[in-house]
C-alpha cells in the first residue's frame, strides 16, 4: 500500500510517500499524482517508503524525464538506506536529483492524502 500526502506551496509541491512503490497500483498512483501537478518544483519525499522495486525505480526515471521535458525540477528527498542501495545498484544516483537530508519545507495546511 502507498499513501501520498500532497503539500502544495506557491511554486513547489512535496509528495510525502508512505508505504511501498512497487509494480501495480502504487506506482501508477504516484505517477498520476506527480504528473498532474502544475508546480515547477516537485519533491518526492521517500522518508517513509519501506520498499521499492524495478517498477518504482522506473517510475522515478519517468518522472525525471517528464520534469525535464516541461523545464521543471524533480527532487527525490530522504530515501531510506534500502532505497539508496537500489539507487546505487542501478546507478540512478547520478541521474536523479537526490537530497539525502532534506527538511520538511511545508506546513500542514491544505494537505491532501491519497492511498493506493
Amino acid at each position: 500500500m502507498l499513501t501520498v500526502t500532497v503539500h502544495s506551496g506557491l511554486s513547489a509541491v512535496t509528495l510525502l510517500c508512505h508505504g511501498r512503490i512497487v509494480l501495480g497500483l502504487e506506482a501508477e498512483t504516484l505517477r498520476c499524482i506527480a504528473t498532474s501537478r502544475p508546480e515547477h518544483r516537485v519533491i518526492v519525499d521517500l522518508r517513509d517508503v519501506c520498499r521499492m522495486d524495478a517498477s518504482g525505480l522506473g517510475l522515478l526515471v519517468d518522472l525525471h524525464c517528464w520534469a525535464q521535458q516541461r523545464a521543471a525540477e524533480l527532487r527525490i528527498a530522504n530515501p531510506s538506506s534500502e532505497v539508496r542501495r537500489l539507487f546505487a545498484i542501478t546507478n540512478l544516483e547520478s541521474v536523479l536529483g537526490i537530497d539525502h537530508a532534506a527538511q520538511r519545507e511545508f506546513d500542514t495546511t491544505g494537505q491532501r492524502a491519497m492511498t493506493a
Partner: protein
Amino acid sequence: MLNAESSVGKLACSREFAFAGDTSAMFAARDRIMQFLNAHGVDGELEIDVLVALQEALANAVLHGCASDPTKTVRCTVDVDDAEINIVIRDPGPGFDSYSGSELEDGTNLTNHGRGILLMRNLMDEISYHHHGSEVHMKKFRHHLD
C-alpha cells in the same frame, strides 16, 4: 496455489509453489514464499535482498513468460538450509536472451524498464538462466550476514 513441502536433510527444507500467471496471484505467491523463508529464519537485510530479487524474477515470469495470462502457470521451487537459499522459477514462455545488453549499468538507462535483472544480479550471490531463459536459478548465501 499448489504447495508441496519436503524435508531434504537436517535443518533443510524444500517447497514448491505454483500460481496463475497474473500479477494478483504473483503478489500472493511472493508473500507465501517469503512467509516460508521467514519461518526458516530468513530476516533482516537478507530478507530484503531476497524479497526484491524474488519480486523481480516473479514479475518477469508473469509479465514476459505468461504475458499476464492467468490460464498459464508459474512454478517456483525454494530450498533453504543453514547455509544458503536456492530459488528456481519456471515460466511457460519462450524465454529471452539474458545477455542481450538490455540491462544498462552505466546510469544512462532513462527508460522505465530494464533494471530488474540488474537488481537480481546484485542482490543475489548467483543467478543463472536455463531453457532459453524461461527458468531462472538464484542463490543467496546466508553466512555473509552471520
